């Protein structure tokens, strides 16, 4: 038996099999890494699309509110009354609160699991000020 084990017959076959196994392991590892990288790229793409869509919505709403504030400043009915009425006629939900003679306006822009919370401060003298522009997932 020991004589048989000491023989070198079949050594080249063992080497070839080991080489093939090593090739297989490295090949599968390389492919797995490449597929993970492709998945990551896809996720980055989806996240970017969602984030910038939410950002677009937040900016479009900011423009609408800016217009409403501008009109309220010129209104004969008084700034706060005109602004509250103007915000009520917008096509999206806003949260309005009075604080220190200013109106705090909050709204949310949302797309694909990403939301941007915006808080603005509006007054007849200072116009519109962005207090918060915060993204959350």
């Amino acid at each position, binding site marked *: 038996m020991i004589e048989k084990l000491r023989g070198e017959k079949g050594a080249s076959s063992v080497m070839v099999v080991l080489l093939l196994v090593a090739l297989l392991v490295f090949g599968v590892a390389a492919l797995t890494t490449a597929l993970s990288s492709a998945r990551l790229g896809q996720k980055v793409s989806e996240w*970017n699309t969602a984030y910038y*869509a939410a950002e*677009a919505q937040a900016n479009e709403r900011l423009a609408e509110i800016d217009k409403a504030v*501008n009109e309220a400043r010129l209104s004969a009915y008084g700034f706060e009354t005109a602004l509250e009425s103007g915000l009520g006629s917008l096509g999206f939900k806003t949260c309005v609160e009075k604080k220190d003679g200013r109106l705090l306006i909050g709204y949310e822009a949302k797309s694909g699991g990403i939301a941007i919370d915006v808080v603005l401060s509006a007054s007849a003298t200072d116009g519109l000020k962005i207090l918060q522009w915060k993204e959350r997932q």
Partner: protein
Amino acid sequence: MKDKKGFTLVEVIISIAALGVICAVLLRLFVVAGDTTRRAADVQGAQFAAASVVETLAGADTYADGLAALGITGGGEPSAAFARDGYDMRVEAERKGDYPGVLYRIKVSASKEGKTLASIETAKYYGGQAHD
């Protein structure tokens, strides 16, 4: 001469062919992995290039300033094409609505060899009364 040790030519040819087929299949794995990695790197690079262009445009005070920051001057044209980080970039912008400031809808796409790898759409409100 009648010693039967060793292999016949046919056996050797068959074993070399079998090994060749197995090696070809295994090496194909590496080729596919390389192609996939290169494609993924291209897509990620294009995404970062497009996002960086969008951020440059959005971070400027006006759209024209944003284009100038990207090295595009003397036009004021809403659309522009240029090269960045090895990608062909295209910026398309459209002015929307009637506001105290200027609202632009912006689309930035990055392509390579005629194939669009990344496309980002957003909007930016320039000017107006709103300030930080």
